[in-house]
């Protein structure tokens, strides 16, 4: 039920939405940035076959807009990679480890393609490291900054370090969410603004809502 609630909030329609006391303003600067990052207007991906394979493996369709990233990820909720993921994950690992290979950036597979890679990396931390490095190297024009930020938080926790953007939460046995260890929360919104994430207080609010508090 709580997972369903988060999913509902994450898929908030691109209009003003209010869930309990949490105000999701889709006209805010962060929402505009995310729409711009995920927009494929005027884009012409150079590898359509790979793009289709990525979308299929990640369970994504380009018939609908990509849901807003609200910065509430719960450890374990991404699920383990399915059998259908594994060949695509293996392909990504091979690409990432091959020097001089063409990494599937936005120009190659479009925004939906790069977001599909991010979704696959959520489910498999082994590929996450390689994907994160390639996404950071590609830069903001070729990888959505919001995807890079959430993946970096996830990977840092996997490496035993603290997260930077405050997007990762832990679930207690009672189902309550708590913020995973984080560095420098005083400047969190500075970093989140740059990455196109909503204000920290919104993610905290949504996490409390999902905890039933």
């Amino acid at each position: 039920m709580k997972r369903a609630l988060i999913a509902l909030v994450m898929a908030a329609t691109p209009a003003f939405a209010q869930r309990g006391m949490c105000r999701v303003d889709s006209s805010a600067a962060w929402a505009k940035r995310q729409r711009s990052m995920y927009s494929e207007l005027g884009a012409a991906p150079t590898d359509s076959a790979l793009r289709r394979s990525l979308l299929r493996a990640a369970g994504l369709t380009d018939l609908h807009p990509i849901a807003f990233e609200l910065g509430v990820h719960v450890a374990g909720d991404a699920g383990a990679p399915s059998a259908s993921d594994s060949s695509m994950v293996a392909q990504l690992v091979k690409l990432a480890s091959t020097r001089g290979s063409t990494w599937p950036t936005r120009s190659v597979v479009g925004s939906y393609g790069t977001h599909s890679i991010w979704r696959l990396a959520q489910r498999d931390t082994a590929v996450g490291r390689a994907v994160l490095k390639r996404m950071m190297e590609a830069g903001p024009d070729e990888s959505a900054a919001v995807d890079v930020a959430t993946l970096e938080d996830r990977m840092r926790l996997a490496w035993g370090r603290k997260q930077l953007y405050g997007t990762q939460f832990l679930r207690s046995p009672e189902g309550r969410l708590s913020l995973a260890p984080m560095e420098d929360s005083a400047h969190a919104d500075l970093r989140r603004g740059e990455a196109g994430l909503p204000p920290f207080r919104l993610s905290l609010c949504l996490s409390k809502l999902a905890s039933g508090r």
Partner: protein
Amino acid sequence: MPTMRLPIRSLALLLAVALPLSAQKPATLHISLDKEVAGREPKQFLPMVGSWVIAKEGARKVLFIDGRAWKRGQPAGGLADKARAIYGARNEEFIESIKAFAYFPIAVAKGVDDFRDGDISVRFQMLGGSLDRCAGILFNVKPNGDYLTVRFNGTEDNVVLWTFNNGTRKFVKRGTENVPLELGTWHTLRISVHGTQLQGFLDDRLLLEHTLTEPVSGKVGVWSKTDSMVEFSDFTVTR
């Protein structure tokens, strides 16, 4: 009124002893940002690439490189005037090189015309950056825009010496160990130059030693990279 008269021989002896002593005493320049205006470009540094502004951190004023404003290939506003101010007639050559290095924000410290030997230190606090979180000491800045930097990168956790020559950046040497630093905490980066011998310290830990191909000579300042958001303070040059 009684006057004290020193014999000429005694005076000469006094000067002979005093002069070498005063020549050996290190001269320290500490750049204070106290009189700077928050929200404006610094007056003690000349920003050549990137958006450098004075920020308030508690009661203190600090120099902030704001990587949010970073765009590929954009030098700082008024680059031509600034280049002319520090390199006069050779400013065009300088500008061409700097444009090639537009990924790397730099601000040149005023009041240090030719650093050759001694220490340069700066305190820094990383606040963010999706691509990079870099704080560096800029030195050996030449009229043609070539320079050296020893920097810490929070996305790699290391100290590295880089050269920038004729529009090309080259890796020279990495620090002996990786040091993860938390964002929002203050640290000190320091270089020590004696002839061609260079040492790099992070929080007083010696991490880098290298023999340069030629002695250092040029302007100095602070350095960063792409979208880094870093605060700098207590820039100090000891010669």
